[in-house]
């Protein structure tokens, strides 16, 4: 495990990308179906989801600026419990929490610093 790259204010330096985010203790059969980065104009960049659906990567190609990360999961029990998406690092930096059982998505504002 490595030190966390995100700060608690969900800022990250562009130079330390890529960074991997993962589901923290998800229930069985619950997977990430889609993770997207939206810029200020609403243009979406789809992030690569791992083969097991448990993590995704914010790539090095993401430019510095203000972004909105949105993650949609599927499967799991009904209703789903609170699902935490964390940075894959020692301290498991919290990125966002999905709680809504119908939309099964959540968003977080991220700052990529040059």
């Amino acid at each position, binding site marked *: 495990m490595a030190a966390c790259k995100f700060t608690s204010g969900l800022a990250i330096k562009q130079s330390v990308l890529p960074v991997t985010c993962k589901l923290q203790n998800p229930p069985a*059969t619950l*997977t*990430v*179906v*889609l993770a*997207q980065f*939206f810029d200020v104009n*609403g243009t*979406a960049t*789809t992030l690569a*989801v*791992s*083969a*097991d*659906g*448990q993590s995704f990567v914010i790539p090095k190609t993401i430019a510095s600026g203000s972004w*909105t990360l*949105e993650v*949609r999961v*599927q*499967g*799991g*029990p*009904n*209703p789903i*419990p*609170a699902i*935490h998406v964390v940075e894959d690092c020692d301290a498991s930096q919290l990125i*966002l*929490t*999905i*709680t*809504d*059982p*119908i*939309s*099964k*998505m*959540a*968003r*977080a504002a991220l700052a990529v610093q040059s």
Partner: protein
Amino acid sequence: MNKKLRPLHLFAFAVALLSCRFSLAGDKPIDYCSRIATFVLQGQASLDTNVIDIINNPSCFFQASLSNSSANAAIAPARTSLWNAFQSFSGTQQQGSSLSSTGSTNAISKPAGPTALVQEFGGANVTRGTSSSTIQWSPGTMFTNLALTGVNYLCLTKSEPRPCISAGLLRNLAPLTFKITANTSSGTPSMTGTATTQPSTNSSQQVTVSSQGNSGPNFGGLTVQYSIFGSRNRAGVKSLTSQIKSNSSAGQAGTSPSSTTSYFAAELAKAWNAGNALDGCDAYVNWKGPATKALHSKIVAAPSPNPDHRQVTLLQNEIEAQYEALLEAMLSSPTCQSTLHAFGDFYAAILEAKTYEDFFAVQSSSAKPELAVEYDLNTPQNKPSYSSVRATATWLFGKSTPSVPSSDASQKPSQVETRQRVQNYVKTQTTILDQATPLESPLTSKKLSANAKPLAQATAQPWSFTLTGTADLYNAEPPTSIPSASHLRDIQAGTEIAYLFSPSSKSGTLRNFIGSVTAAAGYSYQDQTSPAILTGPALSDFTGLPSSTTTAYAKRGVIHLGQVRLGFGTGGNLNFRLPSPIRTAPS
């Protein structure tokens, strides 16, 4: 002495069994605002990101709007969207149109298919045949549509909104179907016959009978049918009411098919739009600070895995009050009108994605056999009344889950076609719903129905395989003067395999005009363990019977029946909405 089986007792038993099921079900609808309050008090979620940012809490925000009809109407064509989206994923009517061998052109009876739930509007359904009419009523269908079209709301919490229909009730009623069959032909004698043996003074005589059809109209029979396993109606209701365990196959191995992501991508895009619009809504901007302060004031204890119920209620009430206040402010603010519209789109996208996800559950259920039990009370003319107990197993198969927009060029032409239909459906559905026209509009309703039809055809399972077993029992002990007569009238077994040909987008005008065509082959076996018994005034038409004859009986034996059938069309709903839609069936 005659021993009566009392068919109404059997019916009462069935009702009691169902009542027992209802009481055992007891699933509670989800209280979205209570959930988020609990998460916050547990430390699982935060007020700032999961409550104040309403994009992350849309279900509770919607729930809070229920008490305000203006707010509810402004942000959510939700139920109509869900209902219509699900309707589009139904099979065709033809698969579910042959419910009984009585009054039907089919030798083999089947349980109601998924169409009974999603294509009918829920009222009584009249199927007209050449010599009979069958009135069918599925109470679960009617209540589901009442709930989902907002006539009576589906319960989001235990009893809210008032009045509401619980999901548990819908699920347990869904597999239940009532039918009443009436014979409608007239003008011909029901049968003719001659005495087989030298007439005697006995009151029961053996005869050779030729059926000439029914005379009538008259009561033909009553059917109570309940699918006890694999009910597709129940699977549909589970999806519609969010009570099913999500068992989507997509993404299980982490390789989400690209076909599914378009719905989820649309949901995320609409979430971004709604969030972006919120930033320009002064009511929301002004609400955030005071709401955060008010909500924080309700959290008086440190996070706990098991928060006190009163604390949860306190915070939940404050969340709902704050959301209601926000909605009120948004409704009256000119800068928030686009935000409200964006939320309407967001909810529509959520429900489209959810419906698509749930569709996998229904599709997977249709791959499993559906087992139904059925009770029929038959009162044929000039014959003793009898009861039928029937078990039916049906498999629908032959088509995988439909694809939706994808750039995968390796897909088969049929997949591409289905994909295109789904794409067209979503496009037009969005257009219609964007008009924020309530479903009550006949024009919109007609457009939605017409819109759903091609997709329903494209997604229907083409093959069906049916097995049935039936025992017919006389309701009264036959006269002892009839040799070998017993309560057990006959036993039957049958099987049918059918294939549904649906027109495609490449089909010509004539093919589209004809619509769906079903080719079927069936075989039925019947062992008459007790002689067929004839009574009543028809005996006077028989040749060679003494006037003292009150009962005649035919030979016992085994009947083999083979049937090859080609059915055209899928029937269509006449313009009768709830409570009395009428369907004409192919004959």
